[in-house]
């Protein structure tokens, strides 16, 4: 049997939890929007492929270098995996990764619902 106290105690908590979850989702979405706006999205054409070598890494802005370094080390990763290492939101990493793809430093490949980002070390050039 559930006591009155429990129902009263749990329900508001549950609702608060839901609100928090939704706020977090909203926050992630907003961060992505801000990120995309900052770099003026739509008319961006991917730049020609540019190798992700150490000098390129050095000249990158700090926030992108952090992401790029981890892809370098892992070879291939999802935004989720990167976020675990940088302690930044998955959506933020996703925005940075897509930016690195646009800059021609990374390649992106979709497998089912997941998107993998990787450094293309194989193509001849």
């Amino acid at each position: 049997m559930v006591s009155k106290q429990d129902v009263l105690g749990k329900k508001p908590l549950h609702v608060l939890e839901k609100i928090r979850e939704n706020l977090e989702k909203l926050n992630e979405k907003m961060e992505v929007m801000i990120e995309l706006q900052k770099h003026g999205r739509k008319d961006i054409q991917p730049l020609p492929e540019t190798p992700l070598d150490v000098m390129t890494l050095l000249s990158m802005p700090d926030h992108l270098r952090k992401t790029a370094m981890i892809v370098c080390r892992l070879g291939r990763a999802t935004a989720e995996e990167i976020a675990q290492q940088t302690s930044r939101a998955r959506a933020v990493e996703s925005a940075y990764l897509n930016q690195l793809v646009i800059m021609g430093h990374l390649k992106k490949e979709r497998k089912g619902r997941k998107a993998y980002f990787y450094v293309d070390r194989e193509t001849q050039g």
Partner: protein
Amino acid sequence: MMMGKIIAVHSYKGGTGKTLLSVNLAATFAKHGKKVCLFDLDFRAPSLSTLLKIEKPEHWLNDYLNGTCEIDKVLIDLGDRIQNKGQLFVALANPATEAMREMSAKDRKWEMRALGRLLALRNSILSDRGFDYLVFDTSPGLQYSSINAIVSADLVLVATTFDRSDVDGTKRMLHELYDLFEKKTDLVMNKVLHDISSEPRREEMQSKIKEAYKVPLIGIIPCFCEVLKGEGNIIFAQERPEHPFAKILDEIAYRIDNNNT
């Protein structure tokens, strides 16, 4: 089991003692019973083949980075030179002028692949072959092979001296290179001429260096005439284990082992 570590030994200027430090540090780890591999990544001026008197290996590190052979073909076992239970291997850079010229003319794409191959050593050498340490000897200053080494390493040992031009350059490099890659960096103050024989004097110097560079200091090495007189022929860690230079390296190796600087 603990995963092994990659240590890059680097410096701003040449002549700070990187190679001597790398060789002796690797030998010290081996002396302590570790499985170690020393890599000559100074492709501009290779020196380990001469220093270790290895004539003509079948494959060079150049070949591995070029993607024409696997890493086990490059590793040379120096087990016959080690008295203790440790294991010491070495991978050499090709000192032929032609090879040096070729390495200095590589493009960015090649350097990117080279970085990939250095990063892959974490799996092939540390995990699969169970090495405890990989020690990278590098070229001084800011150049591809050295930065590739730094990016692949877990720990960067920066060899420096009190030489005026070295001090400023090293400070800049600490904050404009290693910091950007978020690398754990430890300083080795080498060729120190001041008297640091007493504990208070040593401590005074330690705090001065830490204050000036704002990074952990892992060792202070006095200028030993015997080391210079050895002309690179003696691996002190092995042949003169009682020498103060060998003792200091023992301490540095223990500090790295215990992650304590």
